[in-house]
């Protein structure tokens, strides 16, 4: 046995094996870091869109269009729906990117939770925006959109914190 090991060692097999293991480790680590960086970029773009949604709601419900102005609510709808569509697509992409064989995260629950919040943002932003002058709870709507946008971002942040938590701070996953 010792003789065989010695021969293998002399042949440089162990060196090659260690080099290979090291290379695999570096490769997987760099891929993981690259993926984390992509996820951070996606999250930053979602945050930006959520802020735009909140700002546009503030503007629209503050300066309510005249009853005969049909273009304004349609443009507002297009603005909000475009961003909500984008966020929904990006969330699915982000969820897929965060899959890991080593962590038990409920991805379906996370997606459901986010889609529910997007649905609420769509609804509270655009429902009856065609007759905005008759809507009574304009301020409440703006505040609700702000709250929903914040909640959505916090949910994503919690999800990422669980996915990329450091070993020293291991806590129970919220998803």
């Amino acid at each position, binding site marked *: 046995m010792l003789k065989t090991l010695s021969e293998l060692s002399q042949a440089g097999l162990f060196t090659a094996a260690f080099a290979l293991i090291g290379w695999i480790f570096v490769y997987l680590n760099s891929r993981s870091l690259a993926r984390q960086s992509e996820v951070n970029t996606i999250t930053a773009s979602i945050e930006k869109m959520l802020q735009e949604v909140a700002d546009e709601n503030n503007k629209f419900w503050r300066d309510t269009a005249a009853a005969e102005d049909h273009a304004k609510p349609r443009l507002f709808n297009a603005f909000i729906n475009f961003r909500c569509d984008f966020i929904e697509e990006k969330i699915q992409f982000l969820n897929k990117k965060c899959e890991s064989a080593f962590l038990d995260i409920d991805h379906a629950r996370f997606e459901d939770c986010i889609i529910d919040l997007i649905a609420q943002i769509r609804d509270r932003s655009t429902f009856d*925006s*065609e007759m905005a002058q008759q809507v009574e709870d304009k301020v409440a709507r703006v505040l609700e959109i702000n709250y929903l946008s914040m909640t959505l971002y916090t949910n994503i942040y919690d999800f990422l914190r669980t996915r990329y938590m450091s070993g020293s701070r291991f806590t129970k996953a919220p998803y």
Partner: protein
Amino acid sequence: MSVPHTIFVATEFGDMPHGRNDKDGKLNGEKFRKEHLLPALAEHEEVLVDFDGAKGCGSSFADESFAGLIDHEGWTKDEVVRRITYKFRFKSVIKNIYKYIDEAEARRLEKC
């Protein structure tokens, strides 16, 4: 199980459905309900409303089209849910349709 009749919103009605009634534009929810949804439901037991290809589905349009069956046509939530299904890549839009149906049902029960 029978195959539902499909209404392709983008091609049969318009790719930009929006608003409640004629005041809000041509491709409004009331028109869709009266000219496409109700005739299809009169002929077929199950109807699939396919939004694929449509450039969005406004919330007021969704409310007027589907919850409008309860609000204006005397349907119940059970009938609407049982006979109509939806297809769209954005699940949040479909979620809102069911929300509007629930709210319309609550209004109907309040009236009773």
